[in-house]
């Protein structure tokens, strides 16, 4: 779609506007801010036990340490706060500080505020907590076992939510299929480890009762009402400000919100502004985690590999509380559970399990890695069982190119795509056939070659109504409906013609400011670098709604569309003013190079003059035109109703597609997996900025590969985290990045004005499956869990060879 009369900035690889300040060290992150005078510093006393009753807390010695301002404990929280509203009907009270019991290692027990963090940490060690340890349920199996310790007595069991969905004629299709193939997969816990940890500065004004909190929270802003309700104030009494510079999140910082509430309360009770910067040890142990997922799969399959029925039982370990928006990991992909395949009978049973581990939350890919690891591994299992090529099995099941828009059996509406073409392109780019020949000719040494692939339908811009399926259709009758995926933006022009854009997307480093400049530059016919984009989110200054924020790959789809729409409102206003001056109809006028053009002729009338007139000379404006230039747009994506009576829901607004093909060499003697070549072909519709798109893809891919090879939060049976530092938790460095080759196809989305789709999460969903498929191929086994650490691969290789020792090469 052409968006402008002048130069097309959209679609160009414009360098990031954000980089100059970041590379000069002039970025302003939460830790740099001192927005109010008199700030004191908080440290948190945390539970050393995964499950224990709190007998007593003695703060007497700690509070008399010089420099200590005060201490907040569970008793204060119980008295002053309400539990966070949940996304499920289960009675699981969740507060930001433990009250009678602790339920995971690292759970906050007390907040100590002092003149500086050093003294606060010294004082934390003088807070004496008497615990009565309780039996621990440190994983899904332990929590579901008969006689398992119950985390929340009022809930009666450790199941926080349990729903079963049947779509199509599942039982009959399964019974009629000539093969019934089963498999079980486990996706381990992991965490995205942003460079910047959580940070909160809370300020309370006793004169007005207003809270202002600065935090590196990036949404979803559905959680703003959750925070306000916990504090017991109307929404406008909680002003939330997010700095323009946030040092990454990859989802994790959505879970800073309990600390927003905790520090807001602490600031009020102690009578001073409070700053809390989480340290790395706290972050690793007690911030958030992806869910561990156990999936039992069954497929009804025809002789030629066509899947006619798919059954999945998904157990999610959501940790010690079902912290909103959980159990969304189970539901974010509900509309695309059948992936890229035309499967018309589906049964899904979802069980959210409470365990004595840190509560879970958003992590890049949210629900996708867990789903696609199981689904895409299952495609290979089907191929192996039937003696077919994995690529052929996928081709047989892919949704055909002429089927779009395609409605999945669980309610998703895939807006556009050409899946077989992307698969073909990826296989060709990887020289799949050539590698198969190379593989057939390999010698019988320690190193084995393997190739694997994964096809992923990548959802973007979540439907705010999808989580309602945690309620039954009957229960949903009793609550108000939710739907849509709204984004908002504001574009204003000052009396000198400067353009300022406010965005509601709370970027975490993705480069939203750059793309906003490109969009506004095209619509208003100005230079992108002349457009000022305010990256800071402020609930008192920026138009926003519940879906605001950066998550679910929504910027290119929703945020960019709102910016585009707001800029168009400004454009229309400028053109109406120009029409009055030039005595020409609006539809003859265009904006280019900062001026008004009629056909190919420059009128010499600048948009600076037009904006100036709206401020300086309102009497001269055409009749009915308001003075000033200040336009706000709330953009609503189409096609996102609440779940229907059959529990069908279009969980995301648009759907991209990608295929990864990876080649590996596996050393059976050492368990080393070397990635020889990684190919990823994306169809994300129109790319707004190819350079940023490439960066997003590479970042997602490296994260996906790292969770496939290195990263796992490992707990012992007492619920103690064994991978609490970077010594043991394997984040990737540049040295771990393999050769990567990318390809693109472009099928624009018909649902967004710019035709763009999200693309920053897809490879976190594909890489684990693709790599596991490649290693399975190399060793002739079925990988069931990640990460493929050397010890695990070595064990698998030994099982495969059935020998104690293989020869040295």
């Amino acid at each position, binding site marked *: 779609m052409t968006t402008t009369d002048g130069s097309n900035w959209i679609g160009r690889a414009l360098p990031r506007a954000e980089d100059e300040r970041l590379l000069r060290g002039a970025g302003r992150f939460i830790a740099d801010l001192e927005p109010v005078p008199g700030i004191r510093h908080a440290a948190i006393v945390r539970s050393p036990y995964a499950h224990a009753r709190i007998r007593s807390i003695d703060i007497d010695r700690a509070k008399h340490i010089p420099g200590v301002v005060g201490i907040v404990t569970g008793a204060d929280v119980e008295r002053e706060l309400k539990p966070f509203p949940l996304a499920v009907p289960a009675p699981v009270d969740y507060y930001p500080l433990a009250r009678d019991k602790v339920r995971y290692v690292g759970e906050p027990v007390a907040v100590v505020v002092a003149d500086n963090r050093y003294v606060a940490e010294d004082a934390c060690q003088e807070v004496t907590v008497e615990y009565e340890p309780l039996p621990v349920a440190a994983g899904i199996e332990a929590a579901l076992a008969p006689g398992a310790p119950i985390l929340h007595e009022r809930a009666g069991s450790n199941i926080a939510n349990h729903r079963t969905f049947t779509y199509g004629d599942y039982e009959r299709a399964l019974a009629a299929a000539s093969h019934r193939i089963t498999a079980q997969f486990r996706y381990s816990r992991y965490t995205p480890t942003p460079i910047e940890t959580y940070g909160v500065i809370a300020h309370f004004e006793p004169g007005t009762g207003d809270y202002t909190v600065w935090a590196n929270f990036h949404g979803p802003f559905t959680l703003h009402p959750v925070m306000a309700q916990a504090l017991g104030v109307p929404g406008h009494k909680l002003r939330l400000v997010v700095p323009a510079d946030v040092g990454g999140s990859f989802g994790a910082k959505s879970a800073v919100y309990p600390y927003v509430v905790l520090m807001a309360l602490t600031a009020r009770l102690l009578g001073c502004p409070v700053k809390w910067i989480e340290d790395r040890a706290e972050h690793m142990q007690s911030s958030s985690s992806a869910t561990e997922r156990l999936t039992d799969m069954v497929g009804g399959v025809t002789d030629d590999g066509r899947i006619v029925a798919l059954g999945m039982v998904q157990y999610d370990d959501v940790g010690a509380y079902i912290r909103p928006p959980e159990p969304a990991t189970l539901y974010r992909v509900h509309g695309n559970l059948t992936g890229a395949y035309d499967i018309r009978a589906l049964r899904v049973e979802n069980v959210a399990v409470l365990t004595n581990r840190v509560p879970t939350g958003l992590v890049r890919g949210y629900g996708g890695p867990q789903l696609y690891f199981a689904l895409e591994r299952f495609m290979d299992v089907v191929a192996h069982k039937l003696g077919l090529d994995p690529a052929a099995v996928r081709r047989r099941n892919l949704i055909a190119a002429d089927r779009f828009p395609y409605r999945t059996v669980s309610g998703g509406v895939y807006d556009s795509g050409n899946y077989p073409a992307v698969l073909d392109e990826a296989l060709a780019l990887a020289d799949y056939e050539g590698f198969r020949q190379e593989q057939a000719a390999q010698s019988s040494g320690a190193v084995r070659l393997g190739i694997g692939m994964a096809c992923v339908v990548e959802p973007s811009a979540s439907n705010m109504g999808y989580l309602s399926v945690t309620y039954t259709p009957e229960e949903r009758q009793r609550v108000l409906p939710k739907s849509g995926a709204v984004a908002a933006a504001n574009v204003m022009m000052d009396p000198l013609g400067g353009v300022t854009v406010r965005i509601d997307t709370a970027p975490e480093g993705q480069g939203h400011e750059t793309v906003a400049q490109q969009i506004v530059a095209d619509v208003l016919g100005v230079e992108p670098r002349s457009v000022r984009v305010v990256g800071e989110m402020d609930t008192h200054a920026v138009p926003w709604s519940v879906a605001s924020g950066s998550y679910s790959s929504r910027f290119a789809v929703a945020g960019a569309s709102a910016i585009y729409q707001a800029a168009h409102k400004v454009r229309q206003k400028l053109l109406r003013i120009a029409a009055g001056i030039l005595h020409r109809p609006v539809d003859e006028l265009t904006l280019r190079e900062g001026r008004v053009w009629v056909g190919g002729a420059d009128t010499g009338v600048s948009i600076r003059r037009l904006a100036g007139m709206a401020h300086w000379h309102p009497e001269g404006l055409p009749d009915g035109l308001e003075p000033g230039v200040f336009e706000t747009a709330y953009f609503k994506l189409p096609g996102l109703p609440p779940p229907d009576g059959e529990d069908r829901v279009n969980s995301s607004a648009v759907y991209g597609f990608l295929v990864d093909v990876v080649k590996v060499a596996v050393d059976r003697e050492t368990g*080393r997996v070397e990635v020889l070549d990684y190919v990823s072909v994306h169809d994300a519709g129109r790319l707004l900025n190819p350079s940023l798109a490439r960066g997003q893809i590479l970042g997602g891919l490296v994260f996906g590969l790292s969770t496939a090879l290195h990263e796992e939060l490992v707990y012992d049976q007492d619920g103690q985290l064994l991978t609490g*530092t970077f*010594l043991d938790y394997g984040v990737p460095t540049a*040295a771990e990045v393999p050769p990567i080759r990318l390809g693109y196809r472009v099928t624009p989305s018909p649902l967004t004005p710019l035709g763009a789709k999200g693309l920053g999460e897809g490879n976190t969903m594909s890489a684990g499956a693709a790599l596991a498929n490649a290693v399975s191929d190399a060793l002739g086994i079925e990988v069931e869990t990640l990460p493929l650490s*050397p010890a695990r691969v070595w064990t698998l290789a030994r099982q495969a060879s059935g020998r104690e020792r293989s020869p040295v090469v």
Partner: protein
Amino acid sequence: MKPAPFAYWRPETVDEACWALAEAGADAKVLAGGQSLLPMMNMRLARPGVVVDINALSTLEAISRPDASTLQTGALVRQRALERYAAADPALQLFRHALAYVGHPQTRNRGTVGGSIAHADPAAELPVLLTALGGRITLLSRQGTRVVSAEAFFQAPFVTAVETGELLTQVEWFLPPPGSAMVFREFARRRGDFALVAVAAVLRLDQDQRVTAMRLGLGGVDGVPRAVPAATSLVGLPLDSSIIADFAAEVARSLDPPADLHAPAEFRRELARVLVARVLEDARRQVGHVAGERGEG
């Protein structure tokens, strides 16, 4: 992650440092590159009452080759400095290869050779290298100077022969004669991680491919770096693939490696077998060449 309160002393001379260490006694910790001590202090796993910062002691920054068979490194020599020094000297290629495995360039810019030896992590590279080459460590205190052999220095994980009041001032490394093959290999989860198993080998063969001398050091397989006594058993034998395989299996059998999160004991033993074999194959191929060779596990 803020350290518990501590006193900070920064002596200007080695004498002052010894005085400080004597004064502070068992409550003191020496700060050199800080790559291990500071994280431990920040996590309050280490709580020294006194930190004696030796970074002003520029006399400990010297690297020297007093003769063809000796390398001396002062306690404050940065790992990166030794890596650069070694790059210019064909006889020191093994140092270059081993140091490339130590953390990352950024950590090697701070981390010191003396600190790594004194810290005595059983999986660290430099102690393995010292064990394979042989050498001695100079310890200074107000009572005088003590010289301890590499074999006697490493006593248990993170425990060495350094006594209260002593400062490690110099490490002396014995270099093998020209014509020796030298290989360092390690297997780690990621680049820059501590080794699951590391192997350093020094090998000499005669014209008939018979072993005339061999020294082998292993890391990650015990509480201290291990010199393999069996290495002498190969002397006089022709080094072919079958002898190497038997020898590697014998070495592995003799080990009782620790287990941890990343490597069960059996896996570690197997890694040791594979690495010893691969290192000796590398060394055999290399004999006659002066340059070292390095490889991924």
